[in-house]
């Protein structure tokens, strides 16, 4: 349908900037408290002492015991403490919030706070984890007769956990009986729920004011809710508005994928087992959905007589890695694509030709992804290999691969192709029950009741699309209701997946309402939910793509740089090519940079976008662009550095260590 509507999340930033300027709180800073947080330095520890300096009445310290209704944060059924109380689960966990009349005082006073901890045993550190998710078909051959060639491959992503250097604020203030919260968030209802759980303040009296943001991943999903809860508790205790300033943070889980394949005489895979272990950190959030998304990416596109996939969630004393923008599909897709390239290497052919040889015209139908035609995907691959001169470069690099030779650098080129998926899985959609309501009023206006109001630019496009169907002459007749106590929970807009699905639902509701408005008595309302997106599989495929990525490791600096990226995508329809291309470019650049790649001044991205001209399904652009870039990058790194550099992200230091002995 409208893939690029999802993209609009990151497009037209001018509108968001204007909104930042407009939404100012109307209370004086002289009558408020400014808060900063104390974070734990190490995880899996017990707080042995938390010593505070003498604080006069202008200061306020909030610890785990000071939250009026409870020190608990819950996200889709899983909980964790808002502030570490006795034990610290992960480095970076909030231990204390200190409020002062100004930030200078808060910072200086915080430097006098003394926190000492002692390590705790592994047994005391436990988390509630789901069982492994398994999916299989066919009987696996034990290869006892040695009929097949057995091959193993490994793909690994190391945890990324770092601040984004960007400050944001969460402010709480009271006005009459209402508690106002101003915060950037990817899920307003989570803010309300968290504040209610922590303070006991009734949800109906909590009003959330959205601050615009650019969420590169899901950094505005969990943490703003924690901050909002703390700020609200401080406001209740101090009686004045309270603000917390914090740096945005994101954390990608550690991912390890091990595969075992039995290849026939022609080096084609016959049986395969894949095991993905995902370390989500100290607390796992929506791990079951993560498993479903990951399994979808784990299933290879080529035919197999037998397949067994396992996705296991592990935990460690590290920062909870939520989804990092993909809920595992991108990472699993990257691992599959990387794996195909390794099989090609074993078969002694280029990964491009190998894909052509092993992938049939159609994918196998599974419980996770339908059996779609692979033609479009192959077209993208063809286009990319041609644009990137892939085969020539691949061969040249393979010859040059005798470590750092005379050239003083090593090059590698990688490739990946695949399909996009969108939205939450069918199972989660059924469980969660997120919804929205569209009403055609007596004054012949259209109102939409939804909590998904994060992005002005996206809403603008939604309004336009709804108006086209219901009030063609009056686009101003479509209104999104201001957030209030009766706002319906439309779910988190993380990954823009819900926006993608939501767009589809809005379109469908507008179509139905166009009929009802002429047949029913006004006002007429239509409440819609994820029912529209129930498919026979957990996910619906849409949008295809291929990415080639060329990298270079410089011998003098050991810095891995990206020479260029070539990408080709095919979407059902393209409404706003500029927004779509901008979004894809950003996702590619971001993926490269967060995986340790240096972007030189000569770097270029070549993107080709085509459309099928159909009007059906939608796709999450970010997931596919991210997964394919990651897969192509891992492949390129493998060609450049071999097994020495087996994990992403990679740094110059790691490359230096890997090649240290030879230089």
């Amino acid at each position, binding site marked *: 349908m409208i893939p690029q509507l999802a993209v609009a999340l990151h497009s037209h930033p001018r509108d968001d900037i204007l909104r930042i300027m407009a939404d100012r709180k109307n209370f004086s800073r002289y009558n408020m408290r400014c808060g900063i947080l104390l974070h734990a330095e190490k995880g899996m520890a017990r707080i042995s002492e938390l010593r505070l300096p003498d604080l006069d009445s202008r200061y306020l310290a909030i610890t785990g015991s000071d939250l009026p209704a409870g020190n608990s944060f819950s996200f889709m059924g899983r909980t964790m403490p808002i502030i570490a109380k006795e034990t610290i689960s992960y480095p970076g966990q909030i231990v204390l919030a200190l409020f*002062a*009349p*100004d*930030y*200078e*005082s808060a*910072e*200086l*006073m915080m430097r006098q706070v003394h926190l000492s901890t002692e390590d705790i045993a592994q047994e005391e550190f436990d988390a509630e984890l789901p069982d492994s998710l398994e999916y299989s078909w066919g009987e696996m051959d034990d290869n006892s007769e040695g009929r097949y060639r057995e091959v193993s491959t490994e793909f690994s992503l190391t945890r990324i956990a770092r601040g984004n250097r960007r400050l944001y604020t969460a402010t709480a203030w009271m006005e009459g009986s209402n508690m106002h919260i101003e915060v950037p968030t990817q899920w307003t209802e989570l803010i309300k729920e968290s504040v209610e759980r922590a303070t006991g303040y009734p949800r109906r009296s909590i009003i959330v004011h959205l601050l615009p943001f650019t969420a590169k991943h899901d950094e505005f999903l969990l943490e703003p809710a924690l901050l909002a809860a703390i700020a609200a508790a401080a406001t209740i205790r101090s009686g004045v508005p309270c603000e917390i300033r914090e740096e945005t943070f994101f954390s990608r889980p550690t991912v390890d994928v091990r595969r075992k394949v039995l290849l026939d005489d022609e080096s084609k895979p016959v049986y395969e087992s894949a095991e993905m272990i995902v370390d989500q950190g100290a607390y796992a959030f929506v791990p079951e959905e993560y498993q479903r998304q990951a399994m979808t990416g784990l299933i290879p596109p080529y035919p197999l007589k037998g397949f067994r996939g396992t996705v296991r969630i592990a935990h460690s004393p590290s920062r909870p890695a939520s989804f990092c923008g993909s809920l595992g599909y991108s990472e699993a897709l990257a691992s599959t694509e990387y794996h195909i390239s390794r099989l090609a290497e074993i078969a002694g052919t280029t990964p491009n030709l190998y894909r052509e040889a092993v992938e049939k015209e159609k994918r196998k139908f599974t419980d996770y992804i339908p059996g779609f035609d692979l033609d479009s995907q192959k077209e993208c691959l063809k286009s990319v290999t041609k644009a990137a001169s892939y085969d020539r470069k691949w061969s040249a690099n393979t010859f040059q691969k005798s470590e750092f030779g005379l050239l003083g650098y090593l090059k590698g080129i990688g490739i990946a192709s695949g399909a996009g998926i969108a939205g939450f899985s069918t199972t989660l959609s059924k469980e969660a029950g997120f919804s929205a309501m569209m009403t055609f009023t007596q004054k012949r206006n259209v109102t939409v009741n939804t909590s998904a109001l994060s992005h002005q630019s996206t809403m603008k496009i939604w309004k336009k699309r709804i108006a086209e169907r219901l009030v063609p002459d009056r686009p101003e007749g479509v209104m999104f209701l201001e957030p209030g106590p009766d706002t319906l929970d439309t779910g988190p807009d993380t990954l823009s997946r819900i926006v993608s699905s939501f767009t589809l639902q809005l379109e469908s509701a507008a179509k139905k309402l166009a009929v009802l408005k002429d047949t029913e008595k006004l006002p007429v309302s239509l409440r819609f939910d994820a029912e529209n997106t129930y498919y026979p599989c957990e996910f619906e495929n849409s949008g295809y793509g291929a990415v080639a990525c060329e990298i270079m490791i*410089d*011998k*003098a*600096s*050991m*810095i891995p740089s990206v020479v260029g990226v070539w990408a080709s995508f095919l979407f059902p329809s393209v409404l706003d090519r500029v927004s779509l291309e901008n979004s894809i470019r950003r996702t590619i650049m971001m993926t490269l940079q967060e995986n340790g790649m240096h972007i030189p001044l000569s770097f270029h991205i070549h993107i080709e976008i085509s459309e099928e001209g159909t009007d059906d399904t939608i796709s999450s652009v970010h997931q596919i662009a991210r997964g394919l870039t990651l897969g192509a990058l891992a492949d390129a790194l493998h060609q450049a550095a071999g097994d020495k550099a087996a994990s992403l992200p990679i740094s*110059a*230091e790691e490359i*230096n*260590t890997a090649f*240290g002995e030879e*230089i």
Partner: protein
Amino acid sequence: MYKGLSSPNIHTPKNLGEYASIVLHYPMSTLWGGGTFIMTRPDAYPSKTMNAEIIYLGEVEELHRFQRNDRFAEFGAMVTLDEILSTGKTVLPKALTDNIQTIGSRLITRKATIGGTIATKGFTTSFPGTLIVLDATAEVRYMKKKRLHSRWMQITRLLDRNGRISLPSNGLISRVRIAFSEKNCHYFNEIGSFMLDPENAVAAAFTATLDQDILINPRIAFTYPLHGVCYSRDIDSIFSSLRFPLDDEEVDTLESMIFTFIESSFPDITPLQRTRTSGIMRQIIDDLNEKALTVPAEER
């Protein structure tokens, strides 16, 4: 406001005479040039340790002067790197202009001053090394018997035994003089960011005159931001004794000799800094080999 925090007093002398009288009254004051280093420290603000008296040098007229003749260019310490580049790009030695250009954005070079790049406390920028190989001299002003004295010194002489720039207490670099070089080999390279990744960054500056196959008056300095400048006349002498082009064996021997010296001065450099130092050194040798094998234009 937090009781231990007070707004520092800012003194803005208009000339060096005023500066001297302020230093006399407030000997423990902090000198503030462009502020690029001070302002980028993680706990720069709010800071209880920030001295209550700051002497801001931005309005001292003498420190903004720039003059040149046919032998040298002379810059006041508060001349910014951007001003140096825009006024002397065509006449200044290439090693210096390359060094300024590696800083990157003019958002930084417009603030950073030549004096500040030399006299940053507890941190070594890539500039002292470059100025050493360029035989630059600096005018050091210092207080003695309540009077401001002045002395021109070679930058090399300002290095202490640890490879760091060391000035007399209350000392101030007021001018830097850079001779126009007649050397035909100028090289500067910086790998890694001195500000963002000081553990792994390294810079090297090299100047010499290549006459047929030998180097006349070669000078080479390696800089490690958290350690200091590694400069030795012994290494210069080794380079003087070489005949170019060098073969692989000679390069290996040279490299091991250089590393013996570097590691004796800075035993704690990281493995990546070691690799990068080796990489830069080999780039210099490759460059010299190439030059030695190329027929000069005037002889073609």
